[in-house]
């Protein structure tokens, strides 16, 4: 233990870091939880390239015609075929174990002769699901070709896109953004308000400590964990799913730093007045809720109606996610993501300045 005296800002920052690392639960939620989430989501939504389309074939109708249809469907390597009765098929479709049901059309006139005559078919699928619509086209294509349809236009598939096109590629930057928001807000909110509840803020205010040092130490201690947080998620993405950072690592770290500072300022603002942990938890949730829903962490916010998009884009988490995706997925440079970065900086500055003005020390 050294006797060298360090400036108060350094001592305050060190104290906050020690408090954090000595709280095993906090370490879990900040570092382990997002990695587990990335793994779980990455597996659940793993890339479906080359995956089979699951089809339920109804066991009703004339046996000979049904057997012929089954034989034709089985020739295609693109289908995973299961034969079941109508009730089971309906359940399987509802639970998305199959994407489409195919059966002989009972209302069509019976085929004149068994064997190779083409049957009339009925498809059952959920037209609201893209997978359902695609599965219907795939099955129909197999059937039509089997009974002799030929393509009028020659077509072949180009090479698949390589850069950041899978769901996990989309997800990892979003998880980094969401984690920076969560740890910024909760980490600051809880510790500041519990220091207020415990009258520690009042005790500090009774010393010659510069009040700005205290507030700055909160922001600074966040920065030291930031690298680890980003590395944990990005590292898990790289190792487990091969998610690559297309842009520069330095740009990722700089944007993450601005994001952490921005949410630090917002966290400080939320924690500036509340006198109880319950109150600050409520405010934290209120602040984060719109961003959880709208900021496009798990799916693209472009799906929201056009009139909502300008509002969504100025949310700090949207800005952070956009900037991170730009760099990580699209290989953009910092200059190319200047507008979300500006949004982040403005949020952080406004939060910090207002927080300092209205901060309650006791």
């Amino acid at each position, binding site marked *: 233990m050294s006797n060298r005296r360090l400036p108060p800002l350094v*001592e305050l920052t*060190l104290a906050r870091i020690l408090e954090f690392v000595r709280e095993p639960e906090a370490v879990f939620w900040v570092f382990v939880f997002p990695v587990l989430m990335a793994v779980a989501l990455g597996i659940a939504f793993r890339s479906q390239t080359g995956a089979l389309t699951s089809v339920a074939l109804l066991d009703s109708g004339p046996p000979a015609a049904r057997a012929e249809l089954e034989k034709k469907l089985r020739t295609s390597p693109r289908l995973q075929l299961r034969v079941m009765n109508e009730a089971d098929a309906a359940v399987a479709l509802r639970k998305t174990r199959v994407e489409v049901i195919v059966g002989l059309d009972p209302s069509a006139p019976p085929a004149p002769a068994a064997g190779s005559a083409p049957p009339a078919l009925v498809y059952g699928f959920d037209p609201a699901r893209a997978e359902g619509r695609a599965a219907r086209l795939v099955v129909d294509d197999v059937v039509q070709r089997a009974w002799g349809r030929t393509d009028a236009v020659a077509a072949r598939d180009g090479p698949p896109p390589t850069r950041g096109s899978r769901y996990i590629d989309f997800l990892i930057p979003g998880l980094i953004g969401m984690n920076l928001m969560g740890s910024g807000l909760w980490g600051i909110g809880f510790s500041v308000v519990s*220091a207020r509840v415990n009258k*520690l803020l009042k*005790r500090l*205010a*009774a*010393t*010659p400590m510069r009040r700005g040092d205290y507030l700055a130490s909160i922001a600074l201690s966040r920065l030291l964990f930031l690298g680890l947080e980003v590395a944990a998620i990005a590292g898990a993405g790289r190792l487990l799913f091969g998610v690559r950072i297309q842009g520069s690592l330095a740009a990722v770290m700089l944007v993450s730093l601005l994001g952490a500072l921005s949410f630090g300022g917002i966290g400080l603002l939320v924690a500036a007045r509340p006198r109880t942990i319950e109150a600050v938890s409520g405010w934290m949730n209120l602040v984060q809720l719109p961003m959880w829903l709208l900021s496009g962490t798990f799916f693209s916010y472009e799906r929201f109606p056009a009139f909502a998009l300008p509002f969504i884009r100025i949310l700090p988490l949207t800005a952070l996610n956009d900037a991170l995706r730009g760099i990580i997925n699209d290989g953009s440079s910092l200059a190319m993501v200047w507008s979300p970065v500006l949004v982040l900086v403005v949020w952080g500055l406004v939060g910090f300045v207002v927080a300092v003005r209205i901060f309650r020390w006791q």
Partner: protein
Amino acid sequence: MTNVMSAHATAPAVSCRGLVKRYPDVLAVDGLDLDVHPGECFGLLGPNGAGKTTTVEMLEGLTTPDAGDITLLGERWGQGHDRRLRQQLGVQLQETKLSEKLTVRETVRLFRSFFDEGREVEAVMDLAGLQEKAGARVGKLSGGQKQRLALACALVGAPKVLFLDEPSTGLDPQARLRVWEIVEQFKQLGGTVILTTHYMEEAARLCDRVAIIDHGKVIAQDAPAALVDSLGARQVITFTADGDIDQAELAALPGVRSVIRQSESWVLNVEQAGPVLPSVINALAARGLQMERLSTHQATLEDVFVHLTGRGLRDE
């Protein structure tokens, strides 16, 4: 060691005039004047809710008074010298919970860093008897150890004036004794102490002068012994009776200086309990009453408070 006589000739270390603090539901401090001299240990003695904490927090510059004037070490709060002033003050607040995750040494180091001048961290932990707990987490300390840590944090800036708000409340007698020893060491080095307490033993042992506070006002102020002497009585008889007796009748008994009805009990301030007791028993017997729950003790500051207010220091 400061000479108390000459200290009185110099300007007070802390003084306030006409201090008022009003909260929405209560007038916490109601026109309070104090003068605390350099090198003096000054006690604010009073029951819970008397306004002691509000008073010291105004003196410490943590609470802004609604009216009145405060001077500390020749300066006033809010005139651009607050940090310089705080460099010279040591503060222990009631019920501060220091961070439980930090060790004793880390906590003292942190507080040391706020002061330009001050003591060595190790020396302050020695003074507070925390050397063997230096590496322990604050959350693992006993109540007495936490209180000594609070004192260490207050002393680490080598303050000229030390404010202690209920320094030994909730501690067992042994832990209280250790806290008192630390305060006494600070006094011996010439420091000025302002402490609040509702323990008369604490006030009697540590304080050179005591102000008795009730309902936000000073109702008596003097050296502890002088306050006790002002009762004009050296001993106190307390009893209950199984029926009513006239207060004037008790007061007229020879040797009785004053009589106070304190809820169920009669409190008689007397010169000597021995000669008075038989005449009290006789007076009760003449009315067919019996004495119950009798006790006698040497007069203390508590009796001064009871005499002045008709209530005990720890009554709710």
